[in-house]
């Protein structure tokens, strides 16, 4: 028996920079997981994935990742996706500093 559909976000890596991006409801790619469109319906998820993956000059390797609703937007449910929202644990590189710096600007 097929399990109940769990909510998803569409995520990928940026073609040029390689960093992690998320598809938003208004068809933008955001660096923030919380900006992503939280998709609750399986058929819609497939449509959004096709839409994301078709943008071959912007992103690479689009896929659906499990997520849940959070206070300020979707949150990851698996530790791998959680790490992707931040960067590595051994140095302060990646989103954990890039986003902070971006907000400071």
């Amino acid at each position, binding site marked *: 028996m097929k399990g109940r559909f769990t909510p998803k976000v569409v995520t990928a890596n940026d*073609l040029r920079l*390689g960093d*992690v991006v998320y598809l938003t409801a208004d068809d933008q790619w955001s660096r923030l997981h919380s900006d992503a469109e939280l998709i609750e319906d399986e058929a819609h998820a497939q449509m959004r994935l096709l839409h994301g993956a078709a943008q071959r000059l912007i992103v690479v390797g689009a896929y659906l990742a499990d997520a849940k609703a959070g206070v300020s937007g979707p949150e990851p*449910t698996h530790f791998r996706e959680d*790490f992707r929202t931040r960067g590595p*644990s051994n*140095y302060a*590189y990646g989103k954990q500093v890039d986003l902070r710096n971006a907000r400071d600007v």
Partner: protein
Amino acid sequence: MYNYSDFDEGFVRSRVAQFTQQVDRRLDGSLTEDEFRPLRLMNGLYLQLHAYMLRVAIPYGTLAPRQMRQLAMIADTYDKGYGHFTTRQNIQYNWPVLQDVPAILSALADVEMHAIQTSGNCVRNVTADHFAGAAADEIEDPRPTAELLRQWSTDHPEFQFLPRKFKIAITGSPNDRAVTKAHDIGLRMVRNDKGEPGYEVMVGGGLGRTPMIGVTVRAFLPKADLLPYVEAVLSVYNSLGRRDNKYKARIKITVHETGAEEITRLIEARFAELRPLFGGADQVLLAEIAEAFAPPAFRNASTDSYDAFYKADPTFRAWADTNLSAHRNAQYAIVTISLKAHGETPGDATSDQMRLMAYLAEQYGHSELRISHEQNVILPHVHKSDLPAVHAALHQAGLGTANVGLISDIIACPGMDYCALATARSIPVAQQIALRFDELKLEHDIGPLKLKISGCINACGHHHVGHIGILGLDRAGVENYQITLGGDATETAVIGEKTGPGFAYDEIVPAIERIVLAYLEQREAPSETFLDAYRRLGLAPFKAALYPTEAARDAA
């Protein structure tokens, strides 16, 4: 050191030009990602969790100071000021952007380096004993043969689309420091009854999801037969290898499914066909290459200052005891520079550290550097009188850690901090284990212990052959770490045994501590190493220490 011929130079430059155009075509949309991916992988460019990653080959682990400085320049200009040395004697840059990669490859070509065949189903970077040309126990320097294999395998038309990747390791010493038994082909130099040097050829070793120790298909192969013999092995594998199933495509499965006797017969039959086709050009080339690896002009000078320093300075003495190895010239020592400072990332070096190591190699080390599969840097030829100065400089740069061969000298793959294939993190586990044993001030008392961590079943961290191995897995959405004990990476290679159920991220460091304390309690004398004690005692006492509640229940 080997210097590129005009042919090498032209070939590497043309590949840079090709890839530059391929990147342009990807960015303007003329190539899809499906078309581009194999092209970028052929040039060592991966897409990882947070960014692209460029894997640069360091053939047989040998680097010149100018090359090390260029690696530092690339780290500063195109990355974040550091590089990661890997168990394959490569260096990986974790943060390049796509548009910069052609410029990086061009900068590498400027110092006779490249990233070709660091990925894909081809013969990968040939690895070698990191003490080659210096070790006291060595029969012959294996690097000329490694360079011959590099030239032969680069862009070899027959072997560009093998069933799966193919790794060759070579050592010129009977004591194996190159893990030859866990490679697709392992070559170990031995002498025959007449005292002539040749190679023991082992085939079908490998780690990963199906770990296997290589099978000896030739106990003694004359040196002149090496290339046709290796070609025969590749040729048999190319025909028989399982292209239908990625997980069964490595030669270890071919050997296992075909049987040692039959695969040996097939290789020998193919060799009999190929050998007459080799007219000796390979041997002429090998002789030319060997000239480039002539030993340096060793200095003849007193080593009294070293002896005096050794007696007087306990910090220097501790470092000398762990980080130096016997050189073939008694006035010299092999220096292993630890890239395993407690709490730091195993195998990482900053650009400043790279430049310092380049300087020390130039000043004191006959301009040679090596990268070990254990993720350290080697100065293979240092006169003993220069060791105090070398140590002082290393110490100042955070490179003076006296822990080579000890529990904090951990091999760790990048794991889920970087790698897209990983199922759990490795680096923070390594950092915490090193910090914990430093805090306990126990590691010198524990003595030789190889701890190796992989963040997934592919086993880049060689966990199967660690005295203590740790494998990070994803168990129902949580990081879980499985322990193996008793592995051995040397000429007496053994795959470690699983202890039982795994441990959570916050339980793994205490679990390792329990194993080590059990060893300290049970060893017969400090001279009995962890591996010796394990071989004498077996798994039981370590299991009891690891799973105390279970042991109590069994006793009840």
